[in-house]
């Protein structure tokens, strides 16, 4: 099992460690709910070094990124980040990812840990523009500092004023270590992600600096479980749950990142067809007023008939209500529709709602 450079710290903090995408990762430190609330109300830190960083460089780097991703990367200036996805020719999703434009001929693609190899191979297979594709996932550490007080924490040890707009990044130094800091995250809160190389000592230096600066805000380490409940409250898709090779971006509610009018990209024709013909099923958000805990795999029923399956679920720590995402037949997708979630052979009423689940 692989370890991140924060592994010792997690063990020292008494985190519950689990295997995730081949890495030993902290799933929780104290309580999932208190970690969740720390991020919503103040600031929390996630070690997400397991995520993948793949660098694309060369004269035709933009052409390549345009070919393999669904969003329009030509809109990016250096210093900008874009949420996007890679699709197969049939429109199924290879992965969702962040595209960082470092320079006209240099991009960093941040991909899901479980998909690093698959994504890298997919890129190499489709390298029509002879760009250089470098998987640097193993040399990069990544911390996500998230929450309304995250800016105060990061600002504390930067000389320049931190004036990053949402989905922008800067290359700077922190604790004498070069890093990329982007105003991104997976929580719906104000937040920053810090990418840097170096050894365990460097990683510990950065971690300690952040926690020193965060002490006055009662900063907390947060695990993968809180990361999951935070993203779900926002309705953000998780690859492997809510999106995968069997779902296309239109069904997944990712039409907003799929720019069908841009130049050719892989999956374009299939996705165009889906859009023209209309979807048969789609990702829907559900809330229930009952005391249930919805989980991935539970069936969704209407009038005694199966109409879909949950792909993610939890009890929202903010709403204190069950919330879930799932694919359901398109005719039941509209907001306000009453459906039933089946839990241990019991049908429990729920209602289709708009995302995000919580107001932001």
């Amino acid at each position, binding site marked *: 099992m692989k370890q991140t450079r924060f592994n010792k710290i997690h063990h020292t903090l008494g985190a*519950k460690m689990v295997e995730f995408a081949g890495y030993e990762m902290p*799933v*929780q430190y104290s*309580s*999932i*709910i208190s970690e969740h609330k720390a991020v919503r109300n103040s600031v929390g830190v996630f070690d997400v070094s397991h995520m993948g960083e793949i660098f694309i460089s060369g004269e035709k780097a933009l052409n390549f990124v345009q070919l393999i991703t669904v969003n329009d990367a030509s809109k990016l200036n250096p210093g900008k980040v874009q949420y996007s996805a890679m699709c197969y020719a049939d429109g199924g999703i290879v992965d969702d990812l962040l595209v960082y434009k470092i320079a006209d001929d240099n991009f960093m693609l941040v991909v899901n840990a479980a998909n690093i190899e698959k994504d890298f191979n997919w890129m190499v297979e489709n390298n029509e523009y002879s760009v250089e594709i470098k998987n640097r996932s193993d040399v990069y550490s990544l911390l996500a500092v998230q929450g309304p007080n995250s800016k105060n924490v990061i600002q504390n040890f930067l000389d320049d004023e931190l004036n990053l707009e949402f989905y922008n990044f800067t290359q700077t130094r922190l604790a004498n270590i070069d890093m990329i800091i982007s105003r991104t995250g997976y929580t719906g809160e104000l937040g920053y992600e810090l990418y840097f190389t170096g050894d365990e000592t460097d990683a510990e230096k950065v971690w300690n600096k952040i926690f020193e600066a965060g002490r006055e805000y009662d900063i907390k380490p947060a695990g993968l*479980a809180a990361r999951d*409940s935070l993203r779900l409250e926002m309705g953000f898709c998780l690859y492997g749950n809510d999106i995968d090779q069997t779902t296309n971006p239109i069904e997944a509610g990712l039409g907003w990142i799929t720019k069908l009018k841009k130049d050719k990209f892989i999956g374009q024709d299939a996705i165009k067809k889906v859009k023209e013909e209309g979807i048969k099923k789609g990702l829907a958000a559900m809330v229930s007023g009952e*005391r*249930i*805990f919805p*989980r991935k795999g539970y069936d969704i029923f209407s009038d005694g008939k199966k109409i879909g399956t949950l792909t993610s679920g*939890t*009890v929202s720590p903010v709403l204190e209500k069950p919330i879930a995402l799932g694919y359901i037949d398109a005719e039941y997708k509209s907001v306000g529709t009453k459906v039933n979630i089946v839990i*241990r052979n019991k049908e429990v009423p729920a209602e289709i709602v708009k995302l995000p689940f919580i107001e932001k």
Partner: protein
Amino acid sequence: MNVPDNLKYSKDHEWIAVDGNIVKLGITDYAQGELGDIVYVDIDSDLSDIIKGEPFGTIEAVKTVSDLIGPFSGKVTELNTALIDSPELINTDPYGEGWMLIVEIADTSEIDALLDSAAYKELLG
């Protein structure tokens, strides 16, 4: 890990406080720690009996759902209704305010089959 000496234990990580044929039961400190944040305790409010080896309810934690298994058979005389609104009592005070049921046991020899604290500690390793 807290394993009080004055209690009996089941292999399913329940604790049992015995007073003649009246027993109180809940889940152990180890069990609550493994489950993590408990969100709901689902025991039928009109549960009248528990049966040895049969599920009598479920615990929903953020990470997972777990069945509650009858460690013996008996008549339920009281349910801890505080758990409906405050299931986290199981996390904060598993042997106290987090208790679940009071049961009148039919065959007290079933108590003898339970583990004592030393045997339960051994089970936890």
